[in-house]
């Protein structure tokens, strides 16, 4: 989709805010900007050193998110200064929440930052029973997170019960939750989106197929094509070379149908034949030796002469129970989906989007053609709106769905996307999660899924040893298993491998082929060895990169524009590769 106008054209030039945010408004327009400015993001930063969370916030404060809160109970240590840019020498010994908040807020005076110097446990409520960590009532204040629009949870020691709690809470309140973990040259983050999470404004690639209805033209379009092409052979060279290609195709399709029992070219061979026919009609005895509009027509044959089919993303939406069984309090999205489903049932096609690509043509012809498409689009939207209004009446709904919302759904219907949010796929003791195909790792030697399993193993290990981090012994190379006589000096790599074996066994405990942990371990072990090398800490570049990826995703979720990941992303800083899994 092209950039949309923001506001009525300003006569005195753009406002100060439009100037400052110009480069991003071209991506998400005023509506997206408003969504960002209405948001309050909560960062639960118990992580050490927690740079990935701070870097994410930086990338949200700059584009002007409304406000943010940092919860961090740590005080600034000297080692923080070498990795966290939003601290100075004067920050030493002070609250890390206060200090990072102070330097982050400098980035954008329009953004409010709130530091909370508390441990996550204290912030969320002190009385979390260890036997039932996901009981919402265990929050001292069950509405503690209500004012936030989105929660970022950075991996930390003892995070399992707290994460479980926050995850259940966010699921119950339909609050998006991100879990971030950056370690050495690797990172991982997962999202927990509300279910369902629909996106209308997906910004499809402008080169993706446009719905032009060439095989099923409506009367006004057909009549216009006829009037412009019936005397094609007698047109002057200039006029012949400026007939819009859509009209040429409509004309030649009519000719084709006459000699093919009324059928358009359907399979590939026929389309090739039709394409040659179009090419043969171009005049070549003119000074240019060819005609651009005929070139455009020929190029469009394979791409544009397809029977309309329901795209899978939209099909999923229309077939969703929420779309079929409307309630009085159904979200607007489902009401519109329901009306579009009825439209599609009746006409066998979606409402016409109405956009027209540029093409060689006289100005007047092009504008007339554009108006024919727009008028049809408006009529279709009106029909959807009328059917929606009568549903609203049946359901006795008080507030009508805004016309603008119906219009944008109708225009983007083919590219609508629905994400079925589900609980965070992170480590849970004794849980048989995630339902990953471990076989996938064995089948694909480039799979990056081992990174996720390594993080899972690390979280598992952290949970069980929440008072230590893996210690590095500078004298021991990474691969040797320590032969030290000291009992407690059990090599952390071995401990992590043990955790990995346990998590793989849990993952493999489901149905399907039997997976042996020993087959997968060689793929996980080098990652664990890098974790040990990093001694449980972040490297700035990987956290900055991950903070950029997470911020992009947060923006997509808050603005409900573009398509967010579903639901887990890993990054490999050795190979410079990422992968996304639905786990």
């Amino acid at each position, binding site marked *: 989709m092209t950039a949309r106008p*923001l506001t009525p054209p300003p006569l005195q030039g753009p406002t100060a805010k439009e100037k400052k945010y*110009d480069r991003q408004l071209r991506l998400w327009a005023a509506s997206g900007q408003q969504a960002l400015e209405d948001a309050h993001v909560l960062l639960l930063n118990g992580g050490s050193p927690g740079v990935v969370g701070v870097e994410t916030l930086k990338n949200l404060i700059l584009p002007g998110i409304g406000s943010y809160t940092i919860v961090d109970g740590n005080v600034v240590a000297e080692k923080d200064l070498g990795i966290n840019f939003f601290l100075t020498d004067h920050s030493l010994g002070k609250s890390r929440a206060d200090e990072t908040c102070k330097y982050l807020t400098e980035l954008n005076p329009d953004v409010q930052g709130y530091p909370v110097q508390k441990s996550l446990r204290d912030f969320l409520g002190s009385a979390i029973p260890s036997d039932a960590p996901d009981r919402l009532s265990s929050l001292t204040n069950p509405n503690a997170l209500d004012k936030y629009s989105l929660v970022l949870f950075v991996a930390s020691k003892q995070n399992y019960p707290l994460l479980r709690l926050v995850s259940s809470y966010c699921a119950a309140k339909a609050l998006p939750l991100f879990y971030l973990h950056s370690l050495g040259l690797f990172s991982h983050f997962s999202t927990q989106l509300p279910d369902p999470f629909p996106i209308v404004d997906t910004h499809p690639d402008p080169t993706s197929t446009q719905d032009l209805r060439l095989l099923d033209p409506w009367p006004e379009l057909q009549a216009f094509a006829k009037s412009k092409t019936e005397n094609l052979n007698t047109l002057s060279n200039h006029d012949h070379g400026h007939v819009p290609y859509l009209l040429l195709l409509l004309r030649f399709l009519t000719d084709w149908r006459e000699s093919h029992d009324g059928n358009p070219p359907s399979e590939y061979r026929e389309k090739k034949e039709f394409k040659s026919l179009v090419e043969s009609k171009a005049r070549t005895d003119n000074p240019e030796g060819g005609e651009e509009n005929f070139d455009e027509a020929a190029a469009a044959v394979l791409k544009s002469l397809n029977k309309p089919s329901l795209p899978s993303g939209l099909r999923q939406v229309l077939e969703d129970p929420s779309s079929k069984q409307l309630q009085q309090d159904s979200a607007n999205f489902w009401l519109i989906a329901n009306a579009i489903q009825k439209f599609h049932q009746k006409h066998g096609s979606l409402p016409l989007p109405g956009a027209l690509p540029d093409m060689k043509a006289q100005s007047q012809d092009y504008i007339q053609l554009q108006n024919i498409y727009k008028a049809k689009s408006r009529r279709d939207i009106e029909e959807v709106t009328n059917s929606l209004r009568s549903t609203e009446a049946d359901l006795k709904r008080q507030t009508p769905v805004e016309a603008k919302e119906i219009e944008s759904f109708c225009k983007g219907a083919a590219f609508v996307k629905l994400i079925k949010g589900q609980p965070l796929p992170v480590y849970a003791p004794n849980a048989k999660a995630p339902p990953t195909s471990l076989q996938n790792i064995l089948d694909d030697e480039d799979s990056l899924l081992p990174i996720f399993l390594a993080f899972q193993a690390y979280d598992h290990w952290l949970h069980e040893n929440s008072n230590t981090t893996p210690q590095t012994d500078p004298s021991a190379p990474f691969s040797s298993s320590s032969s030290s006589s000291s009992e407690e000096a059990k090599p952390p790599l071995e401990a992590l491998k043990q955790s990995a074996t346990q998590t793989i066994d849990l993952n493999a405990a489901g149905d399907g082929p039997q997976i042996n942990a020993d087959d997968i371990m060689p793929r996980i072990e080098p990652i664990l060895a890098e974790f040990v090398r990093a001694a449980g800490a972040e490297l700035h570049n990987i956290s900055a990169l991950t903070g950029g990826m997470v911020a992009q995703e947060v923006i997509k979720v808050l603005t409900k524009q573009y398509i967010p990941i579903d639901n887990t992303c890993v990054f490999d800083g050795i190979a410079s590769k990422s992968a996304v899994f639905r786990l």
Partner: protein
Amino acid sequence: MVEHSRSRYQYIDNFLNKPGPTTDPDFVPGAPTISNLEASKVLVIGAGGLGCEILKNLAMSGFRDIHVIDMDTIDVSNLNRQFLFRKDDVGKSKAEVAAASVTSRCKNVRITPFNGKIQDKDEEFYMQFKIIICGLDSIEARRWINATLVSMVDMENPESLKPLVDGGTEGFKGQARVILPTLTSCIECQLDMHAPRAAVPLCTLATIPRQPEHCIEWAKIIAWEEHRKDTALDTDDPEHITWLYDKSLNRAKEFNIPGVTYQLTQGVVKNIIPAIASTNAIIAAACCNEAFKIATSCNPYLTNYMMYTGDDSIYTYTFEHEQKPDCPVCGNLAKTITVNPRHTLQDFIESLGERPEAQLKKPTLRTESTSLYFQSPPSLEKQTRPNLSKQLSELVSDGEEIGVSDPAFTIDFKFKLIFQT
């Protein structure tokens, strides 16, 4: 030597004190690698969206001798992502403000700014660096530094080979690449991956506009020339933009074309590319991660191209771009280019500006034996001007090699013209 306290670098030191499973066998853990990193002098080209991030990342990765070069001053529309700048800095030198901003935060890092063009510096200047990191939005500047670094390589002297790490972004997308001049595919080898947007034909602008962009281009190219020929168009001057906007709007009304806005006018006239903080963060960090791996040998670095797309889920494509034997910079064969022999030399020259594999705006052309067209000096221009209206077939033969130079580049390009009707 590591003479100062490194307690603030504990996290980096932990990491550099040991090898990992895929570390190069030559890696020496601990102090030697750490002092090597501290002594590595790096040059950052560009102090804009990527540059600000790159400077921060280098400072937070243990680099301590950083130079930065940029000719631009700070504009208010930079503030949504160029996070080292504040409102009060508008109008000041990007390189100077960025350097001061990072050094005030990180006392033990030295950043040396240069407010000027990369073309102002000579080989001796570039020779002092260990790694060069580019965060630019200009293809021309990238091609210039690339050609310069390739020409500096002296096979007898390994120090003369300067790894070039390059990043670029557009909206939610971007790319990071590592170039070892003469050894791997270079910026020029990869030129066709970054094709310029096709220009709208002049006759469309002049007689049959259909899109709001056509009306804006008309105002910029034709109306300005007609009414304000004596004023140089300054795309940063709001009065100029407003004038173009009014003209575009009137033309659009005349043809019933909807959609001309001030924002669109500005976008088309300045060729604005959308830019956001998060994409810059991703690409800059990817570049600095490679620089860190190159400087420390702690792990293998990228060979040689990572493409990032974030608008539909997250997708990265990492691959090795092959060096091209006909690369005008690092190869030695002429690049084959197909032409219509009936086109005039003028047509051909215009097409050189748009062809993804050439992108030359002011080319001077010659064959082995004759001058085809010279942009300057005026006497030669005048002498060769009549060739412009001749057909190519009158000037060169099928398969003939021509030499092309352009004031934007230090090197000559060789093209082999193949006729195709």
